[in-house]
């Protein structure tokens, strides 16, 4: 089971990375980041079969942090929506050079 779980976790992580790199909507990018974090959680849980509870403790921390990050991230996305009426990264282009 361990090898299958780790392979699934790697696959989910890759999907997340590809999503972040190819999509242009800030909300979808953020969802892809969450997918990456949850892929990592799957790895931790799978590995804690071998090594005991510390992997599972790590998962609790990751979920807490992801929740805090979601609160801040969505607030930032709302702030930018108020300025630009869009969350598409192609419209968000004031800073460059």
């Amino acid at each position: 089971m361990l090898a299958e779980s780790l392979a699934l976790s790697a696959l989910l992580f890759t999907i997340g990375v590809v999503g972040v790199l190819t999509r242009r909507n800030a909300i979808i990018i953020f969802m892809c980041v969450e997918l990456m974090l949850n892929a990592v959680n799957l790895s931790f849980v799978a590995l804690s079969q071998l090594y005991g509870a510390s992997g599972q403790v790590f998962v609790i921390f990751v979920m807490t942090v992801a929740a805090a990050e979601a609160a801040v991230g969505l607030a930032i996305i709302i702030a930018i929506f108020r300025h630009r009426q869009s969350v598409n990264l192609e419209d968000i282009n004031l800073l460059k050079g």
Partner: protein
Amino acid sequence: MTFDLNIPSQLMAALLPDLLLMGGAMILMLVAAWKPESDEHQRLVGQGAMALIVGTIGAVIYMMMRGVTGSPGGVIAVDGFRWLVDIVVLLGALGTIALAIEHNRRDGITHPESHVLVLFAAAGMMILAAGRDLMVIFLGIEIMSVAVYVLAGLNRRSARSAEASLKYFLLGAFATGFLLYGIALVYGATGQTQIENIGLAVQKHNLVNNPMMLIGIGLMLVGMGFKVAAVPFHMWAPDVYDGAPTPISAFMAATVKTAAFAAFFRIWYDAFYFAFQGWGLATWWLAVITMVVGNVIALSQKNIQRMLAYSSIVHTGYLLVAVTSSSSLASTAFTFYVLAYTLATFGAFAVVATLQGSETDAPIAEYDGLWHSRPWLAVAMSVYLLALLGFPVFGGVGFFAKWYVLQAAISSPAGLTSLAVILVLTSVISAGYYLQIVRVMFMKTRPEGVREPGPVGGLTRSVLVVTAVLILALGLFPSRLVEVAGSNGFKLYPYSAALDIGRPRLPQ
């Protein structure tokens, strides 16, 4: 005395400065919410935050003087390296708040919580400096980053600030994903999260060629590369430093980088020391690419904040040289360097904040002939730029900072003479943009119609004076500081002193 970190009360005692800062920050949060937003209240909370930081620095120095140590295998480190990084981080937070109080007034930001967020970020950084377990380090990075995401978007009326915040958040969260997956794979390869135990497991089972371990180290390197803005993971830095409020840009450029590098050092030297064959070449190339690309792009910048952003990327490259060196001098070089770099960066950003009109960018053309209208600002800016360049005497402590990084590279067991040569050559390129600004400030005439900077506030002035004086004074008398940095160094892998890490295959 030695703290037994398995006993909660002694663990608390070992975390005394951190707990003081966190507890004080929470009380200040309540104070901030107590009254409606106004400029006076913002100022009051800011002063309270500065007092708290000074108290925390006192606690750190007290711990350092007592020479406390921790039991081995603990989740936090109790050593001189931690206290030195704490002091640099707290000085950075102090400078940020001093600049932010006056900058907020000018930009019409009246949220008193902004100063509390700086304290929370500093608390995360202190945890990063102390963390000796990947779990603790992960939490430290997140406590720091989440606070800084908000700080970047502090100016709610500014679309640029919101954009900086969004970019920083998305790329920061992306980087966290990589770091975390790297941690998971390292945990999978070794079964440990405590970094000393990881180091022992790598040594015992000879995991240098274990693919899971190597991929894990690689992914952690990518995550850390994003946090310290190493090329090619630097794309966010110029945009974010440009859009964020200027004091926060200084905080991100100097203090966030210091804290992230402290954790980087500790993980790489304590956990991955024996896997040098696996990561030496990767950090070697990362350092070279960062130094070369950062310097070349910085040459073409027209906006001073973006130029300073690329300059901070370049300094990441210099610090990566110290990481790659794996030398016992590396930690001395690191603590010395980050102190010098923090002073110079805060000074330079304080000048930028003074000269900048609100909500506009800061073109370098505004510095033409500054000597003729504001001579002291021009002199101070020259000191900071020369310190960043590493110029002897006039650049003060900046010269010695670079000197020690070069020494670390040359004394490296891996033989990094080529890296030292590249460092010197790229420093020559950096003279092209640092000295350019010094030149236009003194040599050009002040053009007609250029906006004259407003009066410098008292707090900003004290930041300018303190940083400039410290840079010059420490440059004249560096020996005491080197002594402190040396004796409080990172005890490089105590149980591996006799070990030959082998001659890694690095390009010569």
